[in-house]
């Protein structure tokens, strides 16, 4: 019987495995130098945050986590002010060039801060990582220049990007189907690819776990980062109102049922802790996608040696 010889195929991953090891190490140094505590929170959960379009993989009597967010917020509520985690996460049915059902999120949270402080962290982090791993901040991805220099970052309000490229303002009259379709067919393809781009201030129905802007409740304090046109990270000023959070979870469950998906139980321990959570900013950043860009591979295939399907 012949043993499948995958040593050759795996040997080809030497460069990206080395790059991933150095990336993880550089991320940890960056946050430790800034007095963040690295944590490991549970992977097997009795409940995830219900989100309309994110499906969890069931495991035993619970689910694998789709994000470490709820437990990290319970730590914030317990008084830990700066936290980070390199967190393997799982999402059912996500397979593609830039999706894999098992992936790593880097999440970090800052108490007494909001999404703009997180943006400053992210700028510093990416230029630090590019410098550490590539030796420069001006790089390229798939033949096109891409700079990680902090002064080049661009912020585009979601409303103005949609008005310019899709001809409507989703913060005025929200249409979720049209939003998703126009985002991927009109807005994302029009974003600059030579520098980090941030889409900021999402329509309130897409707030998820972000707080609405105090002066403009039609919009939420949420931003997303794009590198080379690829979505890399999602950040919030965190919602700390347990009643509003519960209502949003219930709304997400209603929308899940409308699309024929099962509703999820609510994490009551998280909701109970939320009333004690200080104002905070937080972010989830896709480490595999960032590695794909730093390693200059065109899809996650190039950075995942054990790709599942």
């Amino acid at each position, binding site marked *: 019987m012949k043993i499948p010889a995958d040593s050759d195929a795996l040997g080809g991953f030497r460069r990206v495995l080395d790059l991933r090891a150095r990336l993880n190490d550089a991320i940890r140094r960056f946050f430790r130098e800034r007095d963040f505590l690295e944590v490991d929170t549970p992977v097997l959960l009795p409940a995830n945050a219900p*989100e*309309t*379009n*994110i499906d969890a993989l069931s495991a035993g009597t619970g689910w694998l986590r789709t994000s470490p967010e709820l437990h990290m917020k319970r730590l914030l509520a317990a008084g830990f002010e700066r936290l980070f985690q390199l967190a393997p996460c799982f999402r059912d*049915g*996500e*397979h*593609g*060039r*830039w*999706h894999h059902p098992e992936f790593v999120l880097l999440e970090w949270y800052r108490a007494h801060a909001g999404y703009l402080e997180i943006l400053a962290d992210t700028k510093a982090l990416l230029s630090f990582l590019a410098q550490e791993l590539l030796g420069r901040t001006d790089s390229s991805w798939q033949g096109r220049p891409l700079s990680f220099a902090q002064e080049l970052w661009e912020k585009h309000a979601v409303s103005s990007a949609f008005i310019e490229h899709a001809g409507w303002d989703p913060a005025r009259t929200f249409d*979720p*189907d049209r*939003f*998703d*379709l126009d*985002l*991927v*067919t009109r807005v*994302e393809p029009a974003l600059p690819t030579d520098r980090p781009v941030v889409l900021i201030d999402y329509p309130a129905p*897409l707030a*998820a776990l972000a707080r609405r802007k105090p002066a403009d409740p039609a919009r939420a304090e949420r931003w*997303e980062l794009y590198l080379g046109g690829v*979505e890399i990270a*999602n950040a919030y000023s965190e919602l700390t109102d347990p009643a509003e959070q519960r209502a949003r979870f219930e709304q997400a469950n209603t929308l899940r049922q409308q*699309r024929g998906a099962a509703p999820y139980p609510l994490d009551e321990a998280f909701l109970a802790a939320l009333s004690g959570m200080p104002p905070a900013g937080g972010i989830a950043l896709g480490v595999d996608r960032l590695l794909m860009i730093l390693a200059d591979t065109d899809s996650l295939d190039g950075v995942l040696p054990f790709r599942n399907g």
Partner: protein
Amino acid sequence: MAYTASDLRKGLKIEIEGIPYEVTEFQFVKPGKGQAMYKCRIKNMLAGNTMERTFRAVDKIDQPNIESKTLAYSYQEGDTYIFMDNKTYEQVEIHQDVLGDQRFFLLEDLECEVLFHNGRAMTVTLPAFVVKEIVETEPGARGDTATNVLKPAKIDTGYEVGVPIFINQGDFIRIDTRTGKYVERVKQG
């Protein structure tokens, strides 16, 4: 019959507003908090042009009524080419516009794959290689076996093909029907 977006894959044939398309590229996309979508490049099977189309997971996509038949070429009548189904002896007329340059490579009794959309012939695929006789070319230089220098030559249907210098009138050559190019000389009794 309808497909859902999760059936989409490279090579799938779909129908939009009565026109059949083939999916030539396919990418799963899903914005962070958004719904799963499938960004496709699709090829109009009638006109040949391609375009981008993004389908949401909830979209229903029509399935075209496409039938494939093996037909043998029979004869030509003006700009119409008559094919025959060797099982039913049914005759099928196919206009030269559907055949394009493929019409130059037809041979009597040559079996071709014909795709029909709603009963109308849409594409004709010939075997990859056919053998044709050279009916006109400059006399070949004896002993010149170079294959990288080409001269023009005509086959019986009037199609002009580049052939090596050593090919003569009356020789038989193999032609790649997908590219319309000379492949090799064939000894034919």
